């Protein structure tokens, strides 16, 4: 199970780590009780500052995905989400995007735009019409 950090990306490094570890937990690749590498180990392997990894772990902890305990380190706490309809649809979306030759970043843009559209639909009209 590997994660990658793209140093040239505009996405902050800690966010890249947080997103990938979060995705692995959601997908069930990391299950409850699994221990993550220490901050120093992961930072050394990625060749980035330990503070960056520590921030990613803090964000994951704030989201309830992991917990950090003395002696045990960082442990996955969030139970793997049961494969529901949303997950099936997400997989279907990815499969469809692959067959249509849409890149991963474009798929993410599609999802983000759908989220934005959904948020706009529920936002107060005063905000939409300044």
């Amino acid at each position, binding site marked *: 199970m*590997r*994660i990658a950090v793209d140093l040239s990306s505009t996405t902050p490094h800690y966010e890249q780590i947080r997103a990938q570890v979060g995705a*692995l937990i959601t997908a069930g690749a990391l299950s409850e009780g699994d221990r*993550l*590498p220490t901050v120093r180990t992961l930072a050394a*392997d*990625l*060749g980035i500052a330990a503070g960056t990894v520590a921030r990613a772990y803090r964000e994951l902890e704030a989201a309830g995905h992991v917990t950090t305990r003395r002696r045990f380190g960082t442990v996955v706490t969030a139970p793997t989400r049961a494969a529901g309809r949303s997950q099936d649809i997400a997989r279907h979306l990815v499969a469809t995007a692959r067959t249509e030759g849409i890149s991963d970043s474009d798929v993410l843009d599609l999802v983000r735009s759908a989220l934005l559209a959904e948020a706009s639909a529920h936002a107060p009209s005063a905000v939409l019409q300044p």
Partner: protein
Amino acid sequence: MWFDGGNVCVSVTAGYVCVSWVTAVIYLGAVALVLAAVLGVLVWDARRTPTPSQAASRANRHATLASVVGVVVMASILTWMIGGSVLGVVPWRDGRVLALLPALAGVSLLVAQAIGQLTWPQPSGVVREAELTRRAVADVAPAWPRRLVFAWAGTGVLLLVIFGLVADGPRTMIRRAGQYTQAIGPYPGWYYGVLIGSVMVITVVATELVLRLIALRPAVVGVSAEWDLHLRRRSAKHVTRGVQLVLALTTAGVLYAAGRVHQSLGPWWIEGDAGGHVAFGSPAQQYLGTGLVMLAVVVLVMGLVFTVVPVRRRQRNRTAPFAVAVAS
């Protein structure tokens, strides 16, 4: 060093010592043989490691260099110490220097490995990858050589405490013959014990720190986690085996020194005032001394055997080292 007829002379603190040509050649030949054997094993061990990428080759060379430098310096100090003691060309007057030489050899091995791990090539490139698996000292350090490090150090410190309590002086035992007494040494009392014990403890702590460095160093780029783990285990193996050897040597030295003194406290006779001989000393002391000397030999042999005997590591739910090695 200079040549005097059929002898080779060496300057020492107390003047100079000359040994015959034959002795010098045997000594230097033995040193060269030991160093060549050590180098040969290390290089052979490095070459049989398949390197799936250029980064892997570089990492293999880096790890081998650290081990070679450390082990060669360690072997040089040990052969110098053993050869110097046997030939009587020791340049030191204080026995504590001799007692600390094995630990010094171990520390030189640890320093070389520590430098090797601290100067490990850092990950480069725009996209960095890392395995999301936890890595601890227990994963890289071989179990029983690591236990031996603790066992030899614990035994050594325990013996030094016992001998320190038993000793009649800081570094002597007293032989009594009626109203006459004679101090016999060197005995590993507090004069030697505090220093040797402290250095043994420091060596164990330093070993654990270096093993931690080996576990924490950056992973090799473009190879499988198993390949990277194999390289870490190789470095950890060299560290633990080398350190257990020097600690075994130190413990054996302590046992031998104490054993020789206890042997001297065995039965002996002096001429009485009215003629004839009067016996002093205890046969038990002689038996104890002989037992300690024999134990010293056993510890020495065990230390040497555990350094060279190959060990089959128990698989801990991991794949074989090179089964899934991948090129970058």
